[in-house]
C-alpha cells in the first residue's frame, strides 16, 4: 500500500475486508475470473487479503470458446504463477446446439454461453458465494446493486427486494436455494482500476495495450480477426491498424479503438481524456434499453 493515494488505499482496504468476510462466512465460495483488468485487480486483492496464505477458494472462468487467444494464454499463466485452482466451464449444451455470436446474435449468445453457463457452473459445484469484478460506475442498474447481492433459486435478481446494507455489517445468511454474488470492487471507478494497476504494476492482457492488429471496421468500432472463424462480409479485407481494447469479452463482440498507447502510462493518459465509456465497445449492452437490468434479473453477473 506504499505510494497509493489515500483514496486508493481506502478502496483497497475496503475490498480486502469484503473478500475476507466472504471467506470466513460462506461454505463454498468461488471467484469469477474473466481475465479482464477488473478481474486482475480483484484477484490481486484476494492475494493480498490472505497473505502470507493463499486465497481459500478456486477461480472460475466461463469460457464461451470465443475469447481472444491472448486471453486464454494469460488466464492459464496467471493460475499457474499464483498456484491457484482454475475451473473452466463451457456450456456444452449450447456448444452442441451451435450457439455462436454470428448466427445466434449477441443477445442469445450471451444468454446461453455466459448467463446459462455461469448458472450451470455454480450449481454443479454447489458454490454458495461467487465474487464478481463488477463496479457501480459501469452502468446505471449496477449503481443500485449491493455489495452482497442475494440471488433466489434460479439465480434471479430482484432489484426491488434487496437487503439494506448498513455500515460494513454484511448480512451473510442465506435461505435454502439462495446464493450470493459479491462485488468487492463496487466502489472503484475505471480510473481507479487503471491507477491501481499502474501503481501496483499488475500484468494485463496485451490486448489492453496498442499494437498493430488485423481488424475490420464495423460501424463506429473495429473488430479484430482473432482466428479463422471470423465471418467477413463480401469484399471485406482485414487491415493492420494500431488498436487497443478498453474492455475484453468474446472477440467478435469486442470493439477496439484506434490508439497508439502501447504502455500502461499512455493508456491511463488516454483514459483520463476519454469522452466515451468503456462499455461503448461492447455490443451486448446496446441491444435494448435497460438490457443490463434485464440480464441481471435473469442471473447474469
Amino acid at each position, binding site marked *: 500500500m506504499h505510494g497509493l493515494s489515500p483514496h486508493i488505499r481506502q478502496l483497497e482496504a475496503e475490498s480486502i475486508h469484503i473478500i475476507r468476510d466472504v471467506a470466513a462466512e460462506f461454505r463454498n465460495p468461488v471467484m469469477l475470473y474473466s481475465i479482464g483488468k477488473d478481474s486482475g485487480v480483484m484477484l490481486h486483492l484476494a492475494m493480498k487479503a490472505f497473505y502470507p496464505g493463499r486465497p481459500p477458494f478456486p477461480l472460475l472462468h466461463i469460457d464461451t470458446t470465443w475469447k481472444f487467444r491472448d486471453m486464454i494464454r494469460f488466464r492459464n499463466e496467471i493460475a499457474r504463477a499464483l498456484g491457484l485452482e482454475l475451473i473452466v466451464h463451457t456450456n456444452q449444451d449450447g456448444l452442441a446446439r451451435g450457439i455462436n455470436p454470428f448466427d445466434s446474435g449477441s443477445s442469445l449468445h450471451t444468454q446461453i454461453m455466459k448467463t446459462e453457463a455461469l448458472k450451470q457452473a455454480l450449481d454443479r459445484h454447489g458454490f454458495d458465494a461467487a465474487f464478481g469484478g463488477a463496479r457501480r460506475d459501469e452502468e446505471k442498474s449496477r449503481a443500485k446493486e449491493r455489495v452482497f447481492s442475494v440471488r433466489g433459486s434460479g439465480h434471479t435478481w430482484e432489484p426491488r427486494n434487496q437487503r439494506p446494507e448498513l455500515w460494513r*455489517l454484511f448480512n451473510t445468511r442465506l435461505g435454502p436455494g439462495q446464493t450470493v454474488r459479491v462485488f468487492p470492487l463496487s466502489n472503484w471507478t475505471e480510473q481507479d482500476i487503471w491507477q491501481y494497476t499502474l501503481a501496483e504494476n499488475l500484468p494485463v492482457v496485451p490486448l489492453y495495450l496498442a499494437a498493430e492488429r488485423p481488424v475490420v471496421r464495423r460501424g463506429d468500432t473495429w473488430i479484430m480477426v482473432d482466428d479463422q472463424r471470423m465471418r467477413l462480409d463480401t469484399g471485406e479485407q482485414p487491415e493492420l491498424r494500431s488498436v487497443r481494447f478498453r474492455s475484453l469479452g468474446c472477440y467478435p463482440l469486442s470493439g477496439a479503438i484506434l490508439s497508439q498507447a502501447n504502455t500502461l502510462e499512455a493508456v491511463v493518459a488516454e483514459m483520463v481524456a476519454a469522452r466515451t465509456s468503456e462499455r461503448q465497445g461492447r455490443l451486448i449492452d446496446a441491444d435494448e434499453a435497460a438490457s443490463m437490468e434485464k440480464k441481471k434479473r435473469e442471473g447474469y453477473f
Partner: protein
Amino acid sequence: MAQHRFYSDALYDRNHREAAPAPAAGRSSLPTLRFLTCGSVDDGKSTLIGRLLFESQRIHDDHFTALERDSRRFGTTGTDIDFALLVDGLEDERRQGITIDVAYRFFNTGSRSFIVADTPGHEQYTRNMATGASQCDLAIILIDARKGVLPQTRRHATICAVLGIGQLVLAVNKIDLVGYDKAVYDRIVSDFLGFAAQLTFSHITPIPISARFGDNLTAPSGNMAWYTGPTLMATLDRADIASALDELPFRLPVQWVSRPNADFRGYAGTIVSGVVSPGTALTVAVSGRTGTVQRIVTADGDLDSARAGDAVTLVLDEDIDVTRGDLFVPPEARPAVADQFSANVIWMSEEPLFPGREYLMRTGMRTLPVTITAIKHKLDMGDLKKLAAPTLALNEIGVCNLSTSSMIAIDAYKENRATGSFILIDRYSNATLGAGMIDFPLRRATNIHRQRITVDKAARARIKHQKPAILWFTGLSGSGKSTVADLVERSLHAAGHHTFLLDGDNVRHGLNRDLGFTDTDRVENIRRLGEVAKLFVEAGTIVLCSFISPFAAERRMVRDKVEPGEFLEIFVDTPLEECIRRDPKGLYAKALRGEITNFTGIDSTYEVPEAPELHLRTGGHTAESLAQEVLDLLRDHGIV
C-alpha cells in the same frame, strides 16, 4: 522493468511500462468524502447529482447520448436535458420518475474523490435513506424553495443525526423559481436551524442553489449578489472529515485467523479506530486475554505502524486463544462487555418489531441471538417527541433494551460507529430487519447468576419412567385442540405418566392477564408460555400445550428453548368454515360482527405449520381417534 513479485515474467508485455512505478504524483492527499443527498420527493436530489457529475466532466459522450434520448422519452424538463435520468437506473424508477433505491455515484475534482449515495425521498423508502447515511460523513439536505421545510425534511435530518452524521449542507434548491428571493431563503434557513438545534450536528452550511441551472454549484451565481458564502462544490472540497478515527482507542474486530502453515498464526482484520505498532499490548475484549503485537503483516511487507482503515494481519508474541468475532483493544481503554444494553433501533421491515421474539444480531464480526426486551419509546421524527409504543413499524426509530445470548464487547455509537452499530436479521427468512446504534450497557444482568442445580432434568424424568416433552397443539380457535389434548392427558394419566396441561384460556386468567390480543401481545403470551412449558420439561413432565399460537416464529422459539426431540408440534387442522360453524364459545360470531378485533382467522393471520411432527386433519374423525394418533406419535418418539 521488474514484475510484481506475485506474478511471472511471462505475464508482462514487452512494452508494459515506460518507467518504474513512482508514487502517483499530483494526486490529492485528502481522504475520499462520502456524502448523501436527501430531502423530500421532487426536491431535486437526482438532478443535483446528475449536474455535479456533468460539471465534473464525469459523463461520457455515449452516456450523454443515452441521456438525450431518455430525456425525450421519460424527461420531466420539457426540451431540456433531465439530469435526474443519469442516476435513476432501475426501469421502474425511470417509468415512475422517482428514486427507489440507493444509487452510488463517483466523481473527483482536482482536490479529492467523492462517493455519493443518492437516496430516495419517498417515505416508504426511508430505510434506503438510512442505509445511505450509515456510510457517509456529510449529508446534503435539499429543500424546494417554494415548499420550505417539510415533514420529510425533518425526518431525514433526524435520521442523519441518529446515524451520527456531523456535517450538514442545507441546499435551498429551485431558488430560481422564487425569483432568487433572499427573504424566502432566510426564512427557510431560520426555520430549519430552529428545528436542527435539537439535533447533534457540528456544522450546518446553508447554500441557495438551482440544481437545474447550476447556480452556486461550482461557480458563484450571478443571480444572487446577496449570497457571499461558498459554492456547494467548494464546501464539499473543503469538508474536514479529518482523521478523528485515529484519535480513538484502538479497535480491531478479528475477521479471519490466518494459519497457512505451522509456523504462522496471524489475526486478519480491518482496524476500525486507533493506531497500532509492534510492541503494543492488546487485550481480547470479552475473554480478557492479553498479548503483545510482534508484527503487522501485509503483502507489501511488515509495517512500523498501522491505523484506522488499514486491512492488516497482526502477529502476537505468544499464542492466545483468539477466534473470528473477537475484538482486539488496548488493556487501558476497553469497551463495555455486556449482554444487555440500550440502543436506538431503526426498523426496516414490513413486519413490525415484536419485543420478546428472538432475532439474530450482527455486530462487528459476530452474529448471535438477541431479543428486544422492551421498547422504551419511539421517536416522532417530525417534532422529536417521545411516544409510547408496543412495537416498531417500518421506518420507525425507537429506543429499545436488548438482551443477547452471550456477552459482547460494545462502545457507544456516538463514540465509535464501528463497535457501536449492529443489524438485526430474521432467523428464518434471513432478511435484514433493522439496524441499531448502541447507547449504553445495562448493568442489571451482571448480578443475576444462574444457580447450579444437582438434581437435573434427566434425574427427575428417570424417577417418573418417562421422557419429558412438550406436546404443542396449535390451530384455529374451535379446531378441537383442547378436546384432543384433554383426551390425551386422560390416557397418559391413566397409564401412570406425570403430565400437565397448559390451556390458553386458563393461563390468560392468571399469568398473562395483562396481555391482550394484538400481535405484540400474542408474541409475549407465547414467550411466557414457552418459558413455563420449559420449566415443566425441566421437572421431567410431559406438558400438553393447547394454544392457537398463530405465528411460526414463536412456535420455533419455544422449540428452540428445549432439546431436539423434546418439542412435538401437533397441527390440529380444521377448516375455518368448520370452526365458524362449531363456534363453541360464540367468538366467531362476535368477531364477524366486528365486536372483537385481532381474531385469528378473521382479521389476524394464522401461519400454517410447515413441518409439524403430526398433522391432524380432523374432518370425519372422532376426538378419540385423533387422540389415539397423538398417543401413537408419543410411542414412536419413545416418550412413553
